[in-house]
């Protein structure tokens, strides 16, 4: 292996990169990644990628809500019982407000936390940032990346393949 991390093809339009991604999948490449300045519809499907983030939201909300509900019950019925005119100390309806709020809070924080962790962010340095043209990935250009860790990766073949997709340019990404 030389110092190459992969090859990066630059495109001007979202449709171009989408077509290129589908072509790369058909050609059997798997170590693919697409970079775009906005979420391009269909690219995630073309990469065969799905996220299960909603489960995190659901479970975290459930756990957060249950925890604060039981906690309030424990506080008022067991640990710090106050007899106020003989009212029942396990006043479930009154516990609903904090329960609701903590459900939302736990679900939201867990969702965001899981999103960043699964994305491997924060990661301030990345080999892609060494490619000067890559700064337009956050502005108006679209990129298809084929990694050197792909089992079918051979530099000359991949370079020729990417060239056949009519990109603006093909950049080397070093390690």
């Amino acid at each position, binding site marked *: 292996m030389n110092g190459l991390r992969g090859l990066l093809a630059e495109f001007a339009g*979202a*449709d171009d990169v989408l077509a290129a991604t589908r072509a790369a999948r058909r050609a059997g490449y798997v170590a693919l*990644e*697409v*970079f*775009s*300045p*906005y*979420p*391009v519809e269909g*690219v*995630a499907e073309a*990469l065969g*990628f*799905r*996220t299960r*983030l*909603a489960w995190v*939201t659901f479970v975290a*909300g459930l756990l957060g809500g249950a925890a604060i509900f039981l*906690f*309030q019950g424990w*506080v*008022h019925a067991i*640990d*710090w019982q*106050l007899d106020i005119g003989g009212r029942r100390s396990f*006043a479930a309806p*009154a*516990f609903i*407000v*904090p329960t*609701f*709020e*903590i459900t*939302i*809070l736990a*679900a*939201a*924080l867990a*969702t*965001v936390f899981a*999103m*960043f962790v*699964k*994305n491997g*962010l*924060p*990661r*301030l*340095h*990345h080999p*892609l*940032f060494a490619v000067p043209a890559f*700064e*337009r*990935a*956050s*502005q*108006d250009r679209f990129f298809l990346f084929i990694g050197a860790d792909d089992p079918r990766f051979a530099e000359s073949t991949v370079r020729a393949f990417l060239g056949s997709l009519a990109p603006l340019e093909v950049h080397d990404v070093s390690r």
Partner: protein
Amino acid sequence: MTPRVDSERWTEGEPDLAAINDLVVGTVQSPRTRRSWLVAIALAGLGVLALALAVFGVFWWYVGIWGVDTPVYWGIAITNFVWWVGIAHAGTLISAILLLAEQPWRRSINRFAEAMTLFAIACAGMFPLLHLGRPEFFYWLLPYPNTYGYWPQFLSPLVWDFFAVATYGTVSLVFWYVGLVPDLATMRDRSTGLRARVYGVFALGWRGSARHWERHQTAYLLLAGLATTLVVSVHTIVSFDFAIAQLPGWHTTVFPPYFVAGAIFSGFAMVLTLLIPVRAWLGLRALVTARHLDYCARLMLTAGLVVAYGYAAELFFGWYSGDPHERDLLASHLHGRSAPLFWLIIGLNVVLPQSLWWRAARRSTVWLFVLSLAINLGMWLERWLIVISSLEHGFLPTTGGAYWPTFWDWLTLAGTLGFFVFFMLLFLRFVPAIAMSELRELVAERRRRGA
């Protein structure tokens, strides 16, 4: 109705991706507004100093320096709290509910409205804490294990309020930041030197990878769903502060929906108050068009009609309850001591907004601006009527009282206004005020469809 062909257009001209980037990044980096910005932030800085003085006063002499006294234990601090937290709601509605409803026009104004939400919540949150009597012990509202061995009273609306506002503030901040990360990456890639490094840190190394986008968009949608529940719940819980009590004028079942509608109503008024001058100042008329203002005005009118229904329901149930104390308060509102205030509120919040049925009024920037100021004032006065007039009235003439804010009350209100403007100005100077990545998607979709 607008012709079908026009319905896809939410920008003036045909900007491409680069034009949008240039325009939005330009608002942050351009020297054109630097001098006026410096003047504005210096003035707002005086407001922040006023707030610091007002807060110092409360910590030093306690709430006795405010005009609160038996029987009016809640002064304009609570009026201000309800008003500020209400204003926040429009930002969340724009960013969350309109996202779920797939309204393309939210994309030009959601970032701005969310920033408004954040700073309004910060202003709102100060008031109940300062009003605690012993503000230095505000953290006693948190359920944390302590040597006294006691816990917050979870049956108390004050504790509910704390949970509601704290959750609202946190979720709003997270929602805003998640949407901001891709735009911070753009700022990083278009800046140099120290600026690029600072933006780079806050962008967390965002690369725009398709997998990242997919998770990001899913998380954003999930957050929108969660925040939608907050749009309707936060002011509901604020209304419980009143509705749970027995006081005439407070103990009403219509309060939760009526408060939520009032919140959205005043929030849209504040969106217009801020958006109209800012879009002219920053040169964003091409992205925030007259049509955006028109749609804000429509939603404001809708919320205003629900508020009008709330007034009517309050009057009706006051009468229908047969409760002599409720009827006394009603008489006071209609033709008694609080009548001038009540009818002024009706004029500002019910009569004037009816002008929005006419397209000419919705398309007149000057009228929208004047009307938005009138509604902001009207909604503030409405909360005065609810909080203070009800307490002044009480149950019997002998238990009534009178309240007028002191210098310190006004200083706190003026201080939060300065604080709010100060942070809005900082936001406009350092953060792209329009969600570029969302607008790029909008423009690209239109081009694709047009092609």
